C-alpha cells in the first residue's frame, strides 16, 4: 500500500482549507467502514486522506427553519438514538438502526453512506422518501444543494468534485398527519447488506381514514434508491385495507421487475418485495387494518 498524507481537521474551516489542494487522489475519511476495506483491497489509492470524523460542525442534529438538519459525520448510532430524528423522521431512525451491526453503526456515518453510493445503502430509501436534500460545500466555501438521489453517479461513484464535501442533510419537516416507516430484507437479520429496502412516507387523514399523499422509495433494485409514482398512485385517495395492501404489493412487484429486468436476482426480488410491502403497510396502517 502506498503511503499517504493525513489531515485531521477539527472544524469545518480547517477541513475546507485542507480541500484547497485536493485532487482526484484525495480521499475523505469519516467512519471508515467502507474506506478501510477499499484501501486494503487497493480499489482506492489516495495520496492524501482528510479525516473529517473529528469535525464538530458535521456532528450535530438540529431542527431549524422548517428542516431537520443532520450533519454529514453523524453516526448511525447517533441518528437512530436521536429523539429529534425519531420524532421528525421516524423511517430514517429505523433505517439507521438496521445498518450493519452495533460496531458498524458506531463508526459509519450518514454522509459516508450517501457519498459511497452503494445501491443497497440503508439510509437512501428513507432519505429519498423524505425528500432530503444534501448540502455540498467546496473549498472556497461556496455551497450548493441537491436532492439526495442525485449524489450517486452510479455504483460506488458520486457527483462531487475533488474539492467538495457533503456537510449536511436537510429534511423538510412533515406535519402531524404524516406517518413514516422503513423495512429491509437481508439474508439474515443483522449485518446484512440489504437485498431490498423500502421507505414509505404518507399523509393520512385519520378522521376520513384516507391516504392524502404518499412517497415510496425502493433501494437495492437499481443503482440508486428511487421513488415510484406508480405505486404511490395506488395509495393516494384511498382507504387502507387488505385489498389496497394486496394491490400495493402487486404494483411494487411490477416496479421491481421493470427496474431490474435482466438481473438474475429479479425473479426472487419481485416476489420477495411483496412481503416487504405487506410489512411496511402493516406498520403504517395497523390501526385501519384492525377495523
Amino acid at each position, binding site marked *: 500500500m502506498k503511503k499517504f498524507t493525513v489531515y485531521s481537521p477539527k472544524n469545518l474551516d480547517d477541513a475546507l482549507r485542507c480541500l484547497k489542494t485536493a485532487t482526484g487522489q484525495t480521499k475523505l475519511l469519516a467512519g471508515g467502514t467502507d474506506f478501510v476495506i477499499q484501501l486494503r483491497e487497493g480499489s482506492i489509492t489516495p495520496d492524501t486522506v482528510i479525516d473529517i470524523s473529528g469535525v464538530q460542525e458535521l456532528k450535530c442534529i438540529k431542527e431549524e427553519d422548517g428542516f431537520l438538519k443532520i450533519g454529514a459525520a453523524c453516526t448511525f448510532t447517533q441518528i437512530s438514538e436521536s429523539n429529534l430524528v425519531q420524532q421528525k423522521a421516524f423511517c430514517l431512525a429505523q433505517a439507521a438502526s438496521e445498518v450493519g451491526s*452495533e460496531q458498524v453503526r458506531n463508526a459509519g456515518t450518514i454522509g459516508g453512506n450517501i457519498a459511497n453510493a452503494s445501491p443497497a445503502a440503508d439510509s437512501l430509501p428513507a432519505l429519498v422518501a423524505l425528500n432530503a436534500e444534501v448540502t455540498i460545500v467546496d473549498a472556497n466555501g461556496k455551497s450548493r444543494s441537491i436532492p439526495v438521489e442525485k449524489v450517486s453517479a452510479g455504483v460506488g461513484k458520486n457527483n462531487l468534485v475533488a474539492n467538495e464535501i457533503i456537510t449536511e442533510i436537510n429534511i423538510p419537516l412533515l406535519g402531524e398527519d404524516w406517518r413514516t416507516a422503513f423495512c429491509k430484507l437481508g439474508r439474515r437479520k443483522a449485518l446484512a447488506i440489504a437485498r431490498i429496502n423500502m421507505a414509505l412516507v404518507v399523509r393520512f387523514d385519520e378522521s376520513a381514514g384516507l391516504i392524502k399523499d404518499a412517497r415510496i422509495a425502493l433501494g437495492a433494485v437499481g443503482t440508486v434508491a428511487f421513488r415510484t409514482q406508480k405505486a404511490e398512485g395506488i395509495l393516494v385517495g384511498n382507504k387502507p385495507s387488505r385489498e389496497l395492501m394486496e394491490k400495493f404489493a402487486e404494483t411494487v412487484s411490477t416496479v421491481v421487475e421493470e427496474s431490474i429486468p435482466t438481473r438474475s436476482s429479479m425473479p426472487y426480488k419481485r416476489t420477495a418485495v411483496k412481503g416487504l410491502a405487506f410489512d411496511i403497510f402493516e406498520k403504517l396502517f395497523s390501526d385501519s387494518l384492525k377495523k
Partner: protein
Amino acid sequence: MGKIAIKVTVNGKKYDLEIDPRLRLIDLLRDELRLTGTKEGCGEGECGACTVLLNGAPVNSCLVMAFQADGKKVLTIEGLGSEEKMHPIQEEFLKQGAVQCGYCTPGMVLSAYSLLKKNPQPAREEIKKYLAGNLCRCTGYDKIIKAVESASQKGVSRDD
C-alpha cells in the same frame, strides 16, 4: 509523508506514538503495542472478533485507522480483567460454557460489557441485537446469551 504523532490511551495507559499512517487500529494494538487479545477474523467488519471500545463504544478495530484513535480512549480485553482476577462477565462466560475455541470471546465480552454499561437489564432480544455483530461458530450463541443474562442479573455493570 512520514509518520504521524498520536496520543492515545489504551486500557488506562497513555501512549505518545509515532505511527505509520497506513496502520489500522488493530495493527497498532496487536503489532505495535503487543496487545494480542484483540483478534482479527474477517478483516471487513463482518465477524466482530476485533471489537474494541473506542471512547466507550464498540467498533471493529479492523475498520478504524490507527490515527483516528488520536486523543481517544481504547479499551481492549487486556484492560477488562486480569489473569489473576477475571472480570465478572468473563467469569459468567466460563460458568455458562460460553467459550469454546475462544477466538470470538474477547470481542464478544467487550460487546457484552458495553451493552451492560448502556443498558444494565437488557431483554433477551436486546442482547441478541447488540451482539449481532459478533459471530461465534462454536457455541450456537445460547450460552453466550445466558452468560450475559446472568452477568446482568448479578449487576455486573455497576462493578467498574
